[in-house]
């Protein structure tokens, strides 16, 4: 039996571990006596290459610097630190790199910690079995998951809910640190509040807002402090310039979610339709009325596969005679390259034309403006780096010299800012697993390892 606390106090120093904690306001947040410090390191936002190639969102050095600050507090003030989605993608390998950083700092400074590491790589055979049982479904507008795609994925992780954190807290009462693999972003904060007996809806909602740091404040900031009560939670940023306003907190609730007030997560849906956002001081907001509706327990799977190698070339065009016929000109270049390669299915050639529709593509609403200059980025993807380099080289030389109607500038058709003129980008990946999977026990696929350093 866990004795219910009167309130739960949480400090989140920033929305993405590794991006830089503003130390002055972090220390002020620590003075507000948090019961726990939670930091999320995870996101798929920066692309599939992390999962596909095993890269981390930030460098080990960037994480190390933040770990030093967090572990100083953890050891000296006896405040537990929960870090989720190690390395960004939350693979087992990145959980181990985070553990390694903790061990290194503890060794250097003579700190002692009790640590729980929660892993989230999912065995491919286990997923295939779930596919055959009909327990895997797309999470969004994409295809059903096939066993073949499971095999093609470099790594597959699942987003854990609150339960693995709660299990770790129950099994090791005086835990100092939790490092978790891929987690639903609000999970560490929500888990701490749920463990102490608070409402599921309020706990998930507080976690959802706090996982982005003080993005809910105006102006948006980093350190955010939340206090959970029986009937709601309050939010305030330690930096007095970053003010939580009822509208800024309400608006943040919608942030990067598909639906404005129904937020599906592990084990259920957070329903915010009856929520109230109350301004309780110039810089603090109280949120109440958040409801959690339990559903069949599912976790989200994430995986990515390599799909080839890329090379790019960056070119600038200033000559209005060419700019006036850029569309047909680039089609000529494409034909020349197709002819040269011979097999148009073996590669992709994409012209990004900045100044025309580089950002919006076919959805660019302004088709009237004639630009003064254009930046053309030639993107080539092929099976090997050499092949991508060769095709990009062909496209680049054609772009430089191929004649166009009315040309009077015979020195070259474009200006190149960078060398090498063809820039190899290495392997390119694609998300091929983004599906929900039913599981019976919310902790069954997330093994926990306890260790002391």
């Amino acid at each position: 039996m866990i004795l219910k606390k009167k309130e739960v106090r949480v400090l989140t120093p920033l929305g993405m571990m590794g991006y830089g904690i503003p130390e002055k306001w972090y220390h002020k947040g620590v003075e507000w006596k948090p019961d726990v410090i939670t930091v999320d390191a995870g996101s798929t936002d920066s692309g599939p290459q992390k999962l596909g190639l095993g890269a981390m969102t930030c460098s080990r050095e960037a994480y190390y610097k933040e770990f030093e600050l967090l572990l100083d507090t953890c050891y000296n003030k006896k405040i537990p630190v929960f870090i989720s989605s190690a390395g960004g993608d939350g693979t087992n390998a990145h959980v181990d790199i985070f553990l390694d950083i903790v061990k290194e700092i503890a060794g250097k400074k003579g700190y002692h910690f009790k640590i729980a590491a929660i892993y989230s790589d999912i065995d491919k055979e286990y997923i295939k079995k779930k596919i055959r049982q009909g327990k895997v479904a797309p999470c969004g507008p994409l295809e059903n998951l096939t066993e073949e795609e499971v095999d093609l994925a470099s790594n597959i992780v699942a987003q854990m809910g609150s339960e693995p954190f709660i299990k770790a807290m129950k099994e090791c009462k005086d835990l100092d640190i939790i490092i978790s693999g891929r987690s639903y972003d609000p999970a560490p904060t929500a888990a701490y509040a749920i463990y102490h007996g608070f409402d599921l809806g309020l706990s998930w909602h507080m976690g959802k807002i706090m996982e982005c740091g003080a993005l809910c404040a105006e102006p948006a900031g980093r350190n955010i402090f939340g206090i959970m009560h029986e009937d709601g939670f309050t939010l305030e940023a330690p930096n007095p310039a970053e003010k939580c306003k009822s509208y800024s907190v309400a608006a943040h609730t919608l942030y990067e979610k598909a639906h404005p007030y129904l937020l599906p997560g592990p084990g259920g849906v957070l329903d915010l339709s009856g929520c109230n956002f109350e301004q309780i001081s110039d810089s603090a907001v109280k949120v109440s009325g958040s409801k959690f509706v339990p559903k069949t327990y599912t976790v989200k799977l994430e995986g990515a596969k390599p799909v080839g190698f890329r090379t790019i070339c960056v070119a600038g065009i200033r000559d209005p005679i060419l700019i006036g016929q850029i569309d047909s000109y680039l089609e000529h270049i494409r034909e020349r390259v197709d002819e040269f390669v011979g097999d148009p299915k073996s590669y992709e050639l994409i012209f990004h034309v900045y100044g025309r529709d580089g950002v919006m593509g076919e959805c660019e609403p302004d088709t009237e403006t004639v630009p003064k200059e254009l930046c053309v980025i030639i993107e080539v993807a092929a099976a090997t780096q050499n092949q991508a380099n060769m095709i990009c080289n062909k496209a680049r030389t054609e772009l430089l010299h191929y004649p166009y109607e009315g040309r009077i500038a015979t020195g070259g058709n474009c200006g190149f800012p960078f060398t090498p003129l063809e820039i190899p980008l290495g392997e390119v990946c694609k998300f091929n697993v983004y599906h929900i999977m039913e599981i019976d026990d919310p902790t069954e696929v997330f093994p926990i390892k306890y260790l002391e350093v």
Partner: protein
Amino acid sequence: MAKMVALKDIAKVLRSKNSGPFEVTIDIVFKNNDDYKKFMNSGVVTTELIAKLYKLPQEKILTFCGFEAANAFKITIPRRRNQGSIGETDMHAAQQHAPLLSIMIPWDKE
């Protein structure tokens, strides 16, 4: 006749963002409930308009829904290309709100 004002001059927030790797979500947030109601009552932003601006069939629109507690309206659509893969132009889908900026809304002063 009502005065016409561009959405960018009425909304407090008009943003787009990826919601996972397969969806783009657009938020239009108003500074108060009056503005939110005026926007809702104008009936200018419809699924037809979104389908036209984003060149997709109406039935592909995933969310088209207001949230009065936040004085906000949300539209979620599928991404045109797989996030961060070949041909990406906007990894975080952070600039996909642009076609909505100059949509004109009838806006009478109270």
